[in-house]
Structures are given as structure tokens and as C-alpha cells.
């Protein structure tokens, strides 16, 4: 385990650095000089030079990268080109929207998908088996933003039980309003995510139901439910954990788009705004934070998978 932990940690660190390089290069290679955003039309060469110095783009690319990385490690992500506010605090200010949406949608999706998916596998012969399949099949084809739009139409515009969008200006200081504002976004993301999750849970459960060890447990006198609980659950959870790590990243991404539907001031809308205004430091900062999160979640998922199933360590599966 220690060997694996070291190897996986090394991969994580290399990944983080490489991701930072990719992110840095991608935004530098894009056409358009970031100083243009700062300067009026017809700026003098001296003004351009001064603006470059201010942005730190007057030195060579590798030096720029090292400077940026050093600053990023001290959580200094530069300043917005548009409103010159520091990017780091701006990102932090938006976490209270994105993190609750992502995490509650993630938990809700698991609460929906695990029982429903397992049920679809264990009771495949009942009438609801095919219905669950069909609904899941439908669900993975529905884009999150359309589902959000439909939910807004029904619950906010027709029934008028929940707000159509926005977030209270004083945030979580008015918890009632904040929670109300997040109900529909969370449901939207959770439903979309649980559709694909149901399929994985169902497949993993089917795999286990056919396994020899379960038959053996039954032969030794365990009840069907007991055998499933004691032996099936842990085995079925291994592939699901692997998928969960990916799904958490997808949930986060879903939140990015859904934030736009519900006009929520989260990371997603910050990213979209940054892009439409060519605000590179903002885009870079948000992307860095989200990529690092995704990589870290993948790392934790791999570790968790091996804690649940130590056999994976021996197979040399990397």
C-alpha cells in the first residue's frame, strides 16, 4: 500500500505541474495580447510596455510560468484584467455557491442511484426493472441546462413555489433564501448525474449477483439479503467508487453550466464571464482550481478503491 501510495502521489504531483503547464501555455498561445484589455485604442508604445510590465508579460515564457506557479502556490492568482480585483479572493467568494451545489447534488445523486440501480439489478425480472433502465437511458441524454429550464418553468413560473434563479445578495447570511435558491440547481445536477450512476450501480450489482462467492455464501446458509450485505456490497462498490470520482468531477462541471441557467454567482458563472471578457487571469485561476480539484478527487478515488479492494494492489494495476 505504501509503495502504491508513493507512486500515486508522485503521479498526482507530476499531473498537477503538467496541468499547470498546459493551462498556462493554452492561454498564452491564444490569439490576442492580454494588454489590449487594459489599454485604450491607440495606446503609445510606452503605455504598452508599462502595461506588459504590470502584467508580467515582459519576460520570457518560462520565467512567466515560474512566476505564475510561485504566485499560485502562495494562492496569489493575479488580478482581474477587467476590475483589477485579486482573483484568489474572488474565487473563494464564489465557493459558498459552487461547493454546496456540487456536494449536495453529489450526495443526493448517490442516495437516488445506489438503491435504484441495485433494485434494477436484484429485481431485474419485475416490471419496474425495464422502466428504471428506460428512465436512466433517457436521463443520460438530457442536457443539464434543459432539465434546469424545464424545472424553472414548472416549479418557479407555473407553481411559483421556488425562485427561478439568483442568489440572495448577502449570501448565507439569509440561510432560508440561500437554500431556496439552491434547491432547483441541486435537483437538476443530481438528476442528470444519477441517470448515469444508476447504470453503473446496476452493472456492478449484476456482476456481483452472478459471482461464485455469493452462491457459496448462500450455500453456507446466508439469506439472500445477508449474503448481499456481507459480501456483495463491498465487491460491488469497487467499480462504483472509481466511477464516483469521475462523476464528482462531472457534477462540478454540471454545476458550472447549471449556474448559468439559474444565474447563480458561482465558479461557473465566474468562468463564463471571464471568458466572454477575455479576462485571462480569472479564467486561469478558475481552471487551475477546478483542474486541481478534479485531479485530487481522482487520487482519493484510486486510494479509496484500493482500501476497499486490496487485491487491486497485487494485480499491479496502475
Amino acid at each position: 500500500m505504501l509503495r502504491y501510495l508513493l507512486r500515486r502521489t508522485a503521479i498526482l504531483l507530476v499531473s498537477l505541474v503538467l496541468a499547470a503547464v498546459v493551462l498556462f501555455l493554452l492561454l498564452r498561445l491564444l490569439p490576442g495580447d492580454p494588454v489590449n484589455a487594459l489599454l485604450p485604442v491607440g495606446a503609445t508604445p510606452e503605455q504598452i510596455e508599462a502595461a506588459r510590465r504590470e502584467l508580467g508579460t515582459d519576460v520570457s515564457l518560462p520565467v512567466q510560468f515560474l512566476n505564475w506557479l510561485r504566485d499560485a502556490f502562495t494562492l496569489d492568482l493575479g488580478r482581474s484584467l477587467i476590475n483589477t480585483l485579486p482573483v484568489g479572493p474572488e474565487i473563494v467568494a464564489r465557493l459558498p455557491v459552487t461547493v454546496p451545489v456540487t456536494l449536495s447534488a453529489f450526495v443526493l445523486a448517490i442516495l437516488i442511484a445506489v438503491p435504484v440501480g441495485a433494485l434494477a439489478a436484484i429485481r431485474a425480472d419485475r416490471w419496474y426493472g425495464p422502466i428504471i433502465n428506460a428512465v436512466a437511458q433517457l436521463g443520460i441524454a438530457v442536457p443539464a441546462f434543459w432539465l434546469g429550464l424545464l424545472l424553472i418553468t414548472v416549479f418557479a413560473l407555473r407553481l411559483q413555489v421556488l425562485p427561478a434563479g439568483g442568489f440572495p445578495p448577502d449570501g448565507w447570511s439569509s440561510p432560508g433564501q440561500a437554500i431556496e435558491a439552491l434547491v432547483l440547481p441541486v435537483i437538476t445536477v443530481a438528476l442528470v448525474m444519477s441517470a448515469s450512476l444508476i447504470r453503473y450501480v446496476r452493472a456492478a450489482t449484476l456482476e456481483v449477483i452472478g459471482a461464485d462467492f455469493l452462491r457459496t455464501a448462500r450455500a453456507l446458509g446466508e439469506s439472500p439479503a445477508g449474503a448481499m450485505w456481507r459480501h456483495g456490497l463491498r465487491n460491488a462498490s469497487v467499480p462504483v467508487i472509481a466511477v464516483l470520482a469521475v462523476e464528482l468531477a462531472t457534477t462540478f462541471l454540471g454545476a458550472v453550466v447549471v449556474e448559468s441557467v439559474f444565474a447563480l454567482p458561482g465558479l461557473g458563472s465566474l468562468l463564463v464571464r471571464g471568458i466572454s471578457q477575455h479576462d485571462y487571469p480569472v479564467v486561469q485561476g478558475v481552471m487551475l482550481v477546478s483542474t486541481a480539484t478534479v485531479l485530487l478527487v481522482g487520487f482519493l478515488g484510486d486510494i479509496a478503491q484500493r482500501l476497499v479492494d486490496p487485491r487491486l494492489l497485487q494485480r499491479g494495476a496502475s
Partner: protein
Amino acid sequence: MSRRPAAPGRVVSRRRSLHLMIGLTLVGILAAAVIVSFFWLPFKPDDTSGGRLAPPGGGHLLGTDKLGRDLFTQLLIGGRIAFATGLGAVAVGGVLGVTGGLLAGFATRWLDDAAAVALDILIAFPTLLLAILIVAGAGASLGTAILAIGLGMAAVVARLTRVLVKQVLARDYITAARVAGVSWPRIVGTHVLPNIAPVVLVNLALQAGLAVLAEASLSYLGLGTPPPNASWGRLLFEAQATVLTSPLAALAPGIALVALVIGVNLTADGLRDLADPTRRRSR
């Protein structure tokens, strides 16, 4: 592999061939509508004679948008974009991904490890974020969107191809071919590609559905082409403000989108079973 004689008593699951049939029907109907749209459209895309936000009627099957343009016409044009995205992104992702995966699969251990890590990192960039970044820099256009989505897809395809190639290369018949003096390019052509093709093609079909969804999300965020040549995602964005007065405008593009993606997914499911009937029903 695929020409293996049928085992006695083997029955190709009826449910699966039903999937294939429904899938092909959905994709076929939409494809036919798109093909027709190149020869005939109910109205000119920029014809605003219908009156603003008109309800269905008077030749406007779905009514008109806020500028008076026919919605059904826009729906058909959106279909072109959806198909172009699916096919284009699969072409980009398939060619780049399979080539990359082949190279990584053949590479020496050290290089292959590096490729595996690099692919993991690329995959850690969610396709949509990557696409948003590229589209943001290069300007919103259909070509950029297809390229960006295709690039994201290439990483996934390359990872799959790499694993499959390594599995095939470990087989005895590869060693036999090598001993018999067959060159590597020929081995790739006669043994590796035919053996990995079924799985890769099914995966590409699934990816096509995801590509269509990704493009719709991009358009919804305002990173696609604007009306009157808008994708379904953009149509939905436009419809959001007037959803109470013209609900059809917010329903039709979504239904078309879902029908296409389900059609593609079901087709892929059915094809997977045709390619490998022994496979147990699982993912």
C-alpha cells in the same frame, strides 16, 4: 473474432436488437430531416414575415421566435449543426485518438508510462472545460467547437485504444506473426486494427452523443453560432426568456436533442451486442 460461428443455442438477445432498431429509427428520422433541410426549408432562415412570437399555425409548425423567424426552420438547421458536431468530433477524436493510442500501445515501457500519465491528465480536463477554453480563445464558431470537442474526445479514445492494443499485442498470434517475419505496419493492419475496431467504434458512437450534448452546452453558454443558424442549445437559451408565452420553442429543440442522443446511444448499445454477443449485459 466477429466471424466466430454461432454457438449452438445462442440467441442474440431480442431486447438488444430492439435497442438497435429504436436507435437506428430515431437517428434515421432525424438524419432524413436534416438531409431534406438542405433541399427544402419551410421558410428562409431570416424570413421575419411571421410576426413575433406567433403561436403555431399559418404554415409555422412551431410558431415563430421573438424576431418573427420560423422556429421549425431553425430546428431543422439546428439538426444540421448537431449532426455536423457528432460526425466531425468523432472524425477528429477517432483519428487522433486511435493514432495516439496505437503509438502509446507500441511504445517502450518508459514512454508508455509517460503516455498513460499524460492521457490521465488530459482526461482530468473535462471535455467541456477544454472546449470552453479553446472556443473562448479562438472565437466561437462551429469549426472551433467541433475541433475542441474532438480533442477532448481524442484523449478518451487514445486511452481506450492503448489498453486494447496492449491486450492484442500480448496474444500468441502476434508473436507467431513476428516470428513469421511479418512487419509491424502489416501486423497493425491485419491483426491489431480489426481486433480493436468493434470496441473502438462502439465507444466512438457513444462519444458522438456526448459531443452533441457538449456542443449544445457550449451554445447555451453563448459560445456557439447565433441565430438564425443556431444550434439546438442556443435555441433553448433564446427560448428561456419566453418560456411561458411560447412553451413549444423551449420544448422542441430539447426533445430533438434528447431523441438524437438516445438514438445514438441505443444504436451503440445494439452494435456492441452485435460485435460481441458473448458479452454479459453490463457496462
